[in-house]
């Protein structure tokens, strides 16, 4: 068994923490794991992608290519569309309905596409869209959007509840722990 999961979004949305949670859970389950991250200039408000791969056989490449992802978790609506081509046939696409206008849209040289959710479904993707931002705000802060989405993703990963809770305890700073646990639970119920 080998699983390829992509966490995509906009730099600053907390995709790194999300990938570390998933990497931690997979390691805890005894799998070989690779997590590929983005640092430096490309993370400043740009489109960011983190790859998490795990399995009971060796994981060689740390990156995921077109048509290879079992699950894509997108922290922003347009980013879900951008990375659709990386989804495997029959793969699962989990998308936050939050919209963030990229600079070419702000400057008026491009248009933010309409009806993305419908178009993703029409393209044949098994897509689930939730309003993770509102759920995060319900949990206490918009900054917990990433953990809401990982709560949703946990339903499709097959790891135990305890191992997720352990990963949250390990990777989330203590003073934000309660809020993030609440956010995770709201994501699970979404």
């Amino acid at each position, binding site marked *: 068994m080998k699983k390829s999961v992509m966490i995509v979004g*906009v*730099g*600053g949305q907390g995709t790194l923490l999300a990938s*570390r949670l998933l*990497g931690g859970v997979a*390691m805890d389950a005894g799998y070989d*794991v*690779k*997590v*590929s*991250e*983005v*640092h*430096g*200039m*490309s*993370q*400043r*408000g*740009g*489109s960011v992608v983190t790859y998490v791969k795990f399995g009971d056989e060796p*994981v*060689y*490449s*740390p*990156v995921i*290519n*077109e*048509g*290879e992802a079992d699950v894509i978790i997108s922290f922003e609506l*347009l*980013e879900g*569309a*951008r990375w*659709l*081509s*990386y*989804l495997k*046939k029959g793969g699962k696409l989990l998308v936050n309905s*939050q919209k*963030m*206008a*990229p*600079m*070419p*849209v*702000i*400057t*008026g040289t*491009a248009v*933010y*596409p309409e009806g993305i959710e419908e*178009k*993703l479904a*029409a*393209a*044949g*993707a098994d897509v689930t869209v939730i309003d993770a*931002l509102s759920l995060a705000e319900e949990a206490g802060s*918009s900054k917990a959007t990433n953990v809401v989405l990982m709560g949703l993703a946990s339903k499709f990963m097959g790891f135990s509840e305890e191992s997720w809770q352990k990963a949250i305890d390990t990777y989330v700073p203590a003073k934000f722990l309660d809020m993030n646990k609440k956010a995770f639970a709201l994501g699970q119920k979404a």
Partner: protein
Amino acid sequence: MKQLMLGNEAVARGLYEAGVAVVSSYPGTPSTEITEYAAKYPEVYAEWAPNEKVAVEVAIGASIGGRRSFSAMKHVGMNVAADPLFTASYTGVNAGLVIAVADDPSMHSSQNEQDSRHYAIASKLPMVEPADSKECLEYVKLAYLLSEQYDTPVLFRTSTRIAHSQSLVELSDREELPLKAYEKNPAKYVMMPAYAKPKHNVVEKRMEDLAAYAETTPLNQIFWGDKKIGIIAAGTTYQYAREVMGDKASYLKLGLINPLPVKLIADFAKEVETLYVIEELDDIIETHCKKHGISVIGKELFPWIGEFSQRLISEKLLGKTPEYVDFPETIPARPPVMCAGCPHRGLFYALKKLGLTVFGDIGCYTLGASAPLSAMDTTVCMGASISGLHGFNLARKEESEGKSVAVIGDSTFVHSGVTGLMNIAYNGTNSTVIVLDNSITGMTGHQQNPTTGYTLKGDPTAKISIEKLCEAIGIRRVRIVDPYELKNTIEAIKEEVAADEPSVVISRRPCALLKYVKHKAPLKVDPEKCKGCKSCLGIGCPAISFENKKAVIDHTQCVGCGICSELCAFSAITE
């Protein structure tokens, strides 16, 4: 116990376990975290030096002084450090010395795509390359043994996908090493011609010995699979190839990149029908093979540019393209942008407004070149803004003097901008330099530097006063502005470029992402007052967009910096 570790963290762990005592580096993506993680070990002294040249010289000194030492940099950092590097090859070491260099194929966060392996060849130094975090840890330890056994600095090459990927590692204890004796030995350490000439012979002999070692080292490994296809690869390209080809190919995985083995490759070549060299960037391994009469397929099939991938190898070796569905419309690009609340934004808005020619530099503020600010004319390398502006003004004289500026961040200014400013003061062009002082090294993720008042380990320390430094150099006109105050900033720059002597403007406000920076409440647009004039969109803030003919502010991004409200003629943007 197994742990999931970033490649860079695993290098740092290797340093710790190898008993390394002194680490000196300058930050640079994708190498930065090695030094940050090293600093977390109390047993390891780790510092940020002002630039890579200083850092490598510190590491050389510590090695001569009898402690295992280390320096890390990005590929272009090695250009800066090349001067000490080439002669450290002659002196050799006392305690082990390893210098890590991280390449960035595809330029995720770099200004060029150079291949650092050329440095190993040119400086006649051994170079080691790991392919995952486990090897990052193990190979660093081995590199110290090589360094001491062969009396040589050892280069340690990584790339973005190794440096910034996490994989599993096994930890061991630290080996505490005694301070090695230092003996005065000018024939070894004083590289003037009389001593350097015999040393060159030593270097050539060392490379011969290392070439023999390359034939048998455990750093080079063969994995036999189907012998129809043989693949020679190193680092991340080995991982891509192995994932695609599995046991449908045989692999010669190289961990020692310089010098390369001859017999090992020739023997491997004899066993396989078709032999491919899969290497990102330049054709170092391929050229080596061909030089020794070994027939390989390399750059005739694989590109010179950018990162490779499973997909590329699958297409080239198997003729298979992946199946996938695309989104049915064009998706607007999402390039990186200055963050909401970034102090550089107001400054670049001012430069745009004044229509100046802007010599730029390396840092977050290079994003000032992007639309809609589009206020940058050049970016070459660390420090080139200031020296480049001097040259530009020498060429164009009164055509450009008074109409051009250089912009450079605080850390970059210390790195290599200050020497350019000395040149301006000394040789006297009427140039205006703007130091963007955001109190941190920003782009690489918040590193301290000599202007911040704190060390890498977080201890308070001496702090360079940029204004006093500029004055000491001989710049008489030095003034400080707050880039959040747009009108003052525009006025100040206007006056300084108009002055008939060199001047410096320090644009001072801490990076909006610094933890101690308190953000104001997000601003809101009053849709009744907003006339849809879009002047607020001209600052390129990612928190402001345009919907239904009105500006809208995203409350999750806005930090209340207020630059947009300064621009709004209708007072539509308020708390």
